[in-house]
């Protein structure tokens, strides 16, 4: 019985999804993501409609009646005028001038170099490990506490009290400082990666990761190697995350 309303139900569902995504999600999702979601929703609806012959014919029936001239004149005018108007509106939306700054794409995790310079020495990233991550819990705790002091003296202003990338100066930067509590940041990375990022800062980023406007200082100019490792111990401990590690045995077998 509902079959004759298939087209209208599909359109209503499409509009409901659009309204839901546009108005119920806060902060609003960027247009690029809305475009992906709506394309996939449209695809889902159309494939569902076309996956059953009876359903498909019911969906097409009102369209056929319009394009074959059997529908009331008002409906024909509405559809035939509506399509070019919609297309025109779409074209205008795409071409209308905007005051937004142009989008600058950037990569989340720039690839680390195989080696980098630290206080005039070459450091190989491949086998770099945190020398202060000791099995002795007392020692480890001592270094972590020292790291906390270093963090509050140097990193806190941008990366914040909760290590969530929301320090006092955070909003002045684009990109904003890293949120260490985010599962997609330090917990996905080995400590060697974090060490390289801290030691070389924004200027140490590889060419492949341009355009980079990172305001991260080159911390090796301000801290010793040991101080950097201590700060790294703290950002993992303080944010409740652990560094990414590999199965040591498997790695050794191969080498």
């Amino acid at each position, binding site marked *: 019985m509902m079959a004759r309303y298939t087209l209208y139900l599909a359109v209503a569902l499409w509009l409901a999804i659009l309204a839901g995504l546009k108005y119920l*999600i806060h902060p609003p999702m960027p247009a*690029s993501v809305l475009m992906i979601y709506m394309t996939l929703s449209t695809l*889902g609806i159309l494939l569902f409609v076309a996956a059953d012959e009876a359903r498909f014919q019911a969906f097409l029936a009102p369209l056929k009646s319009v394009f074959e001239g059997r529908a009331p004149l008002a409906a024909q005018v509405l559809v035939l005028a509506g399509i070019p108007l919609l297309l025109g509106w779409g074209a205008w939306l795409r071409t209308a001038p905007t005051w937004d700054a142009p989008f600058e794409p950037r990569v989340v995790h720039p690839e680390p170099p195989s080696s980098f310079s630290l206080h005039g020495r070459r450091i190989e990233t491949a086998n770099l490990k945190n020398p202060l991550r000791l099995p002795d819990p007392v020692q480890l705790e001592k270094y972590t506490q020292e790291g906390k002091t270093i963090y509050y003296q140097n990193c806190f202003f941008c990366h914040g009290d909760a290590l969530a990338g929301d320090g006092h100066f955070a909003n002045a930067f684009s990109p904003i400082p890293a949120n260490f509590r985010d599962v997609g940041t330090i917990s996905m990375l080995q400590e060697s990666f974090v060490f390289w990022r801290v030691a070389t800062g924004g200027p140490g980023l590889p060419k492949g990761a341009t355009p980079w406007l990172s305001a991260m200082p080159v911390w090796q100019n301000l801290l010793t190697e040991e101080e950097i490792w201590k700060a790294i111990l703290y950002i993992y401990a303080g944010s409740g995350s652990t560094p990414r590690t590999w199965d040591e045995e498997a790695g050794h077998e191969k080498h």
Partner: protein
Amino acid sequence: MEAHLTDTITLASTPQALKGTYKGVVKISLMLAATYLVAQGLSHYLPAADYRQFFGFSNRIAVWIVAELHLMFAAFVLGVPIFAVITEFVGKATGEKRYDDLAKEFTKLLAMAYTLTAVLGCVLLVLFVALYPKFMGYMTKLFKPTWLLYIVLIFGEVVIAYFYWYSWDLLQGARKKWHLLLGVLVNLWGTALLFVADIWVTFMMSPAGIDDAGNLTSLWAAINNHTWMPINIHRLLANVAFGGAIAAAYAAVRFLNAKTDEERARFDWMGYVGSFIAIAAFIPLPFAGYWLGREIYQFSEQMGVSMMGGSFAWLWILQAMLIGGLFLASNFYLWLGMGRIPGAERYVKFQIPMMILLTIGFIVWATPRSIIASGAEMSAMGGSHHPFLGLFGVMAAKNTAVNLMILTTFFSFMLYRRGNRVPAVPWAATGKIVQALAIAAAAGVVLGYGIYSYSVPSNIRIGFSVYQVGAVLAAMAVFVAIDIPLLRGAQEIGAIRWGQIPARAQYALFFLAISFTWLMGLMGYIRSGIRQYWHIYGRVMDESANAYTMMHGHATIIVSCITVIFFLLVSVVFWMASRNEDGEGEAK
């Protein structure tokens, strides 16, 4: 090639089978000899250089296009025999001739694709020697024994594969077991060829067995490098999926051009079997890919980060789009197929929840971690990560989504299978409840671990994907283990009306084939591109003008061009296969 193709019409006697095989061997010998002479001639006459241009065209792009096309045809000719021989085994076991005919139909495509594979391989070799002489000189120094082995294997493969094809009608009845043995040998030889070819490509990614000066210290270490076995397995599975998808596309072409109901029924069935093979081999593929990714990270974090989080990360969104599309298309095809199964209308009610699950899964799967946003949108979000949508951008969400999509597609297939049957066993109701519980439990495990994984460190989170996959595979195993006895002696509502499927279902099969091809090209580019400015990662630098990473737009256009060229060439194979059959029909 023309003479060879017309020969395929008659496949009856021993002398003819031997003659066909002999011709194949002569052909490949001539090709290899010509390739050797051309390569030697070019090396001799061209002025010495480390790199050469291809008539003013980029040497990298020339090699890229030919290598990828060669790889696609090679994947096809290595993948098809795997399921051709399985289909032949099914035919032998069930005694149903239609399976044997189908296996022969698959193999027919193969016989013609061999020539194209060999021609492309020869062109590729000439290009390598002419355009990258210094690099090829180094590789030859390291891998000469494997190259000799490769040539021996090529001859072995040609002899067995041609004999497998030409002896089809000869080795029937009591002699069928010998034909099956030939089929198994074709596959063993083909797999060995693949494994040898993978040595060189994986060595370039994750070199081992050489000292600091680049001298070989252990050939076996160079062969058994970090990525060799993961790529072997990944390619083996992908070849089957790819071969199935191309065979299904061939069936779709034949279906759309069919003039009789009998033909339509035959090719409808072939398309269904091809797509089933493609999807069945596709389901474990992400797990093999995951193993490869892990080995890449373990070999070099730099390379791993470039691949997944750095410059190549956006290409994975394209990959996600294509894979999500594959899931939608395969469900769409199955649902349309249920229209020709009497009794399958009982299961139409499941389509709404399944489509909702698939669409939401696809949406999560395609959500980028780092979102494209204008300045105003960025400040509203507080950065390039959306506080809510950002949760969908990480692997925890994507693993969950893809596992649920796999489970849904599996369920679709099981409903399709049950379409016209009503279980007759007394324990049918209990069996169905256990099946439903198995699916629900797997979905619960997948979802539960997916949510829980947000609160654990990444090294533990990685382990969760094993539980998720394990739950899905276990549910599938339980479901099938119950389904087989459940449907034994089932009452049949009516026979499947093969051939009575809307034409648009065939376009879903084209979509599968095109997506698989595009994915192969794209993933191949990522795998090769992450070496960046190295021929052999970290050891031999690419010193040519092309040692840069392309813009994604440029690279994907080349991948698209390769896909188009591949389908043009495949169309020739399809056309010849159908023309041959027309000739065969007329001869009869």
